[in-house]
């Protein structure tokens, strides 16, 4: 797409108030690239954007909130920053880089420059291959999935809207018809 032209027009419409570096930044990226509404503490802006897209592809917004809506990208950034060991941090960053480079090899564009459809296609393909390979060391895509899943289903929206959650059940019934077990969804805890 001719996004450079589109951006120039936008800049003109806005009376040139977008600074030159910002335009350069946008031009180096993709129009589809999300603007980060959170400030990464560990990842770079580009890395954070990639993780944000990926998390939201893994758990998108449907009739219930998705990964981005509940702050999973920021959660991943913090987990890698504070919970991961130095060694695991490096593996995560290396994995991210390889994930992006493989996208370039396959589609000729960095992940963030791909159309949303292509991003999803590539992520799903990488994901399926990783699960089939079943390597002892989880590749980047599964680490992001692990963090996304763990963060999402322990978030209030994930636990209460996609799953069901009862803070104080008060009793245990061991063998009920599924329809009588709350709303029949999986218990969050």
């Amino acid at each position, binding site marked *: 797409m001719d996004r450079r032209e589109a951006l120039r027009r936008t800049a003109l419409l806005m009376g040139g108030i977008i600074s030159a570096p910002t335009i350069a930044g946008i031009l180096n990226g993709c129009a589809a690239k999300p603007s980060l509404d959170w400030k990464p503490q560990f990842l770079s802006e580009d890395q954070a954007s990639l993780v944000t897209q990926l998390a939201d*592809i*893994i*758990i*998108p917004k*449907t009739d*219930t909130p998705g990964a981005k809506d509940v702050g999973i990208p920021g*959660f991943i950034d*913090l*987990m890698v920053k*504070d*919970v*991961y*060991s*130095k060694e695991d941090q490096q593996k995560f960053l290396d994995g991210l880089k390889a994930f992006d480079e493989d996208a370039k090899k396959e589609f000729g564009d960095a992940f963030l420059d791909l159309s949303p459809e292509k991003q*999803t296609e590539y992520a*799903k393909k990488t*994901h*399926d291959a990783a*699960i*089939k390979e*079943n390597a002892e060391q989880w590749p980047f895509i*599964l680490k992001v*999935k*692990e963090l996304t*899943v*763990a*963060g999402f*289903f*322990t*978030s*209030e929206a994930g*636990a209460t809207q*996609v*799953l069901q*959650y*009862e*803070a*104080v*059940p*008060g*009793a*245990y*019934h*061991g*063998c*009920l*018809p*599924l329809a009588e*077990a*709350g709303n*029949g*969804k*999986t*218990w*969050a*805890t």
Partner: protein
Amino acid sequence: MYLNTESEKQNTYDAIVVGTGISGGWAAKELTEKGLKTLVLERGRMVKHPDYPTATKDPWDFPYNDRLTAEELKDYEKQNRTGYTVKQSTKHWWVKDTENPYTEVKRFDWMRGYHVGGRSIMWGRQSYRLSEMDFAANAKDGIGVDWPVRYNELSPWYDYVEQFIGVSGQNEGIPNLPDGKFLPPMELNCAELDLKGKLADKFNRHLTIGRTAHATAPLPHSPQRGTCQFRNLCIRGCPYGGYFSSVSSTLPAAEKTGNMTLRPNSIVYELIYDEQKSKAKGVRVLDAETGEHLEFFAKVVFLCASTMGSTFVLLNSTSNRFPNGFGNDSGELGHNVMDHHLAVGAGGEVEGFEDKYYTGRRANGFYIPRYRNIGSDKRDYIRGFGYQGGASRQGWHNMVKELSAFGADLKKIAGAPGKWSIGMGGFGEMLPYHENFVSLNKEVKDKYGLPTLTFDVEFKENELKMRVDMQKDAIEMLEAAGVKNVYGYDGKGAPGLGIHEMGTARMGKDPKTSVLNKFNQVHACKNVFVTDGSFMASAACQNPSLTYMAFTARAANHAVEELKKQNL
């Protein structure tokens, strides 16, 4: 340190209890209820029911998905070895290894919490009686020393403590797992009931709901406790008082008598021995907050500082009479360390029951009592093991490696209860070996400058042979029950991982081979009672806390009777 007679008088009580965990709480309750002015010393900070800081938080209230940061983990390198205990929601209950070091000749997982209530706050709550078979086992096998006590002597004390703490369970009439005074049992779920039936049919083995110290009905004698709410957040402390801890149960009972003085931040590091009277006079205390050294005096001292805690105090209390540690004429003090060996068993997937589910979070599972080396069954090892296990439907944790769980489908799949899975892990008896021991280490000091402990403990041939059966039998039972994709595991682990350390001041009939007599009194100094796990002459394979409670109540009763007779 100089103490004038006035302050000595101020620091004098009828009884001193060291420690506030399972055993200390019981000693405090019994001694105060029998009218003794009792000083209860706890090395850690104060905790009062129902103030548990994380108890009512939701999953999303914790940062880092409840995990410790890499930086925080540096303080809990050993405490974290269980993999399940130290989290954002529970880290305040575990000691920092950096402040409380110990030395391992061989790996030993020593899990501790220093605060009022001790590990009674985080304990697993499984409560089983030892049986006549267990008390007679050492004599029968010629192992260690014979227990100086038999089941019939202890049975009324089991009744007594069960009724006070509230134990939920099912009487089954199994000779080697005696029935008790139980509150209503919790329910088994569909998959567990199915397994129970099949084990009875195919193996003639029992499966019963776990016997657990949860109030499944009100306990009128403990109005501060409510009933179990099935939240399964017990390890954080229960503001409902749904399970037994010292903080929710025995310490409030002691408090109510008006006879208890509870002093937290008081590290007992030594017993004071009176050479003239051949009695313990009291204890020396380091105030953890002020650094002050203090002395307290009493007619009787109950050491309930946990197995290793009490053993440390005894080893660190030397005198002309006891140059090798207090009451250590036998040379057995610190020796015969036992635990239960675990982290071995099997699991798999249960077919069917797709239209069934459960409500509530049952902090309990099923129990398969020991069946090995009973009756005509003879193995290439002695003693045996029980299993604890449970079944549940898989949830979101299984999404990561689920191929079809991606995008909008992931939510759909996660929202529908997954397959039933079932698992069981063995709890095996570990024998007492003199060569398995802890010793005082004066080179390595803790943050208060006190000596520390060195562990030299390992599993030996009997345990390793038993583990083969523990895995094999679990696989065999699950497969026979029709469970699919059965997998066995043996996580090896290390002593200590069961968090049931015991045996370092064993009781016995002969002062030459044991440290304590049948009433938990130090043979050579009868006004010192040791009633935590250190008295255990054998480990059996049942979770031991209920037995510590029964022996503690019995010992306290004996102490008061002996005081009345002026024998102490």
